[in-house]
Structure formats: structure tokens, C-alpha cells
């Protein structure tokens, strides 16, 4: 597929500039509808608190999607991702206000593989927490 980043122009250790992705309650409602995950911990504060959570939390998959977006925006083509995995290491707490929360994603080219593929290691933070760990994407470059 047509990644716009060229393998030969990428160095191991190269940083990909961070990006901020805001998340408000409305985004979680939209994500619930689009994904089919209607777990009330993602939209119902009363329910979230009864199961011991501090507040409504974002779907892990919403956070993972922001990491995916970060990589596809860099690579230039969503079809360039051949493998993408994360561990959800902390919750993204989304308060019921206009600001909501912010997920900040950054990346580094961790390794160059054969066949014009690279491993991108991602860091995702929200507030003081690292919300993804072991976040890696294998990307097919041009």
C-alpha cells in the first residue's frame, strides 16, 4: 500500500512529534454507538462509581484508536499498519465538563525490520498517567 514515509529516510531512534487528542463525554457516547460497546462505565458516572471507579473512563479501544490515528497520520496510509498491539496500563478518566481529558501520544522508531517495515513504539499519557504500555505498531513503509 501507499505509505508516504520512505523506509530509507527513517532512522532508528527517530522521534515522531507528539499530538494531543481531546476526549469528552460526547466522544465516548459516539464511540459506544459506533463500536457496540455499551458498558455503562464509559458513560454512566453513577454506575462507574458503584463499581469502584473514580468517574466515567474512556473505552480502552478509544485510546488505542488515538494511537492508531497517530501512526496512520505519520505513515500516510491506514493500510500501512500490519500489526498493532497495546496494554491498557491506566484509565483515562473523563470528567463531565467542557474540557474532558486529553490523550497525548508520541512515538519513536524503535527498530527497522526487513521488507521496508519498521516498529514504532508509542507512548500515550493522560494527566499524570501513562495510559498505554507495550504499545507497538509494525508499519509497512514505502
Amino acid at each position, binding site marked *: 500500500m501507499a505509505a508516504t514515509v520512505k523506509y530509507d529516510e527513517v532512522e532508528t531512534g527517530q522521534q515522531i512529534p507528539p499530538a494531543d*487528542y481531546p476526549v469528552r463525554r460526547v466522544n465516548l457516547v459516539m464511540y459506544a*454507538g459506533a463500536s457496540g460497546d455499551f*458498558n455503562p462505565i464509559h458513560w454512566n458516572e453513577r454506575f462507574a462509581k458503584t463499581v469502584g471507579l473514580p468517574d466515567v473512563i474512556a473505552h480502552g479501544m*478509544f485510546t*488505542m484508536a488515538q494511537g492508531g490515528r497517530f501512526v496512520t497520520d505519520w505513515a500516510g496510509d*491506514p493500510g500501512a499498519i*500490519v*500489526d*498493532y498491539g*497495546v496494554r491498557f496500563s491506566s484509565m483515562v478518566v473523563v470528567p463531565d465538563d467542557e474540557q474532558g481529558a486529553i490523550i497525548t501520544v508520541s512515538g519513536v522508531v524503535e527498530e527497522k525490520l526487513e521488507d521496508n517495515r519498521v516498529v514504532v513504539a508509542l507512548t500515550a499519557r493522560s494527566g499524570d498517567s501513562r495510559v498505554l504500555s507495550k504499545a507497538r505498531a509494525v508499519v509497512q513503509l514505502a
Partner: protein
Amino acid sequence: MALNRDFVGRASAPSAPYEVSRVKIKEFATAIGDNNPIYRDREAAQAAGHPDVVAPPTFPIVFSLAGGTILADPELGLNFAMVVHGEQRFEYQRPIHAGDELVSVSTVTDIRSVGRNELITVKSDVTTVDGEPVCTTYNTIVERGGAG
């Protein structure tokens, strides 16, 4: 409650075919806040070498949770109210695009305790209705306090 270890190795029946539509891809892309034209505009997708609009990398979560039928089995003992997502991985044999008709077969590959939590991993093999491999997903969910 501890999860029933007898479920390790258990596989779901193949899911009913899931038809990937342009409308659903656009809805999903909008929900994740991604304005990439390759998710919306067939010509932009074709210019990037795809037959039609492609799905975002995490889109398979929409249909690959056929494992849900296993997870919902009362014999497993999973308390959904205490579930959070632990890990997720997608291996793509090729991008998913509008027009694909996809079938998932899900298998419980692991159940383990970590501290007071129970972790269960479900692998889903996603193919076209003609049997072409498209992607493999690995979904680990955490039942908080399940092992307590």
C-alpha cells in the same frame, strides 16, 4: 469468582458473516475523531492503492468479539460489571475495506490470575467468507477482583 479454566481451548462457532460497509467505516472514523479521507472517500482510498475505503486499524473490534458468546456463558463465571480491557492486538494480513464479508472464529487461549484479578485472552481469526485470511485479533480482558 475465579474463571472456569476448562474454557481454555474452547472455540466459538464461526460468526455470521459481517458485511463491512462504507457507512459503518465512516461512522467509526468519526467516532474516533479521525478525518482521514481514506476512511470516507473512495477515490482517495483508490489513489492510495485500495479497492474501496479502508477501515481504521482498530475497526475489527466492531465484529471480532464473537468471543462474546463464549464470555457470556454462565459456566465461565465472568462478572461483566467488573470487566476492563487489559490488552489488545491486531495482526493484519491485509487492510479491511468496504465490501468485505468477514467471518470470525474465536478461541480462548489463556486464563490466568494476576494479583486479585482474573485475565482471559481470546484470539479471533478473521477471514473472508471465501476463507482468505484478513486479520487475527488478540483480546485480553481483566475481571477486577475476580481472583480475590
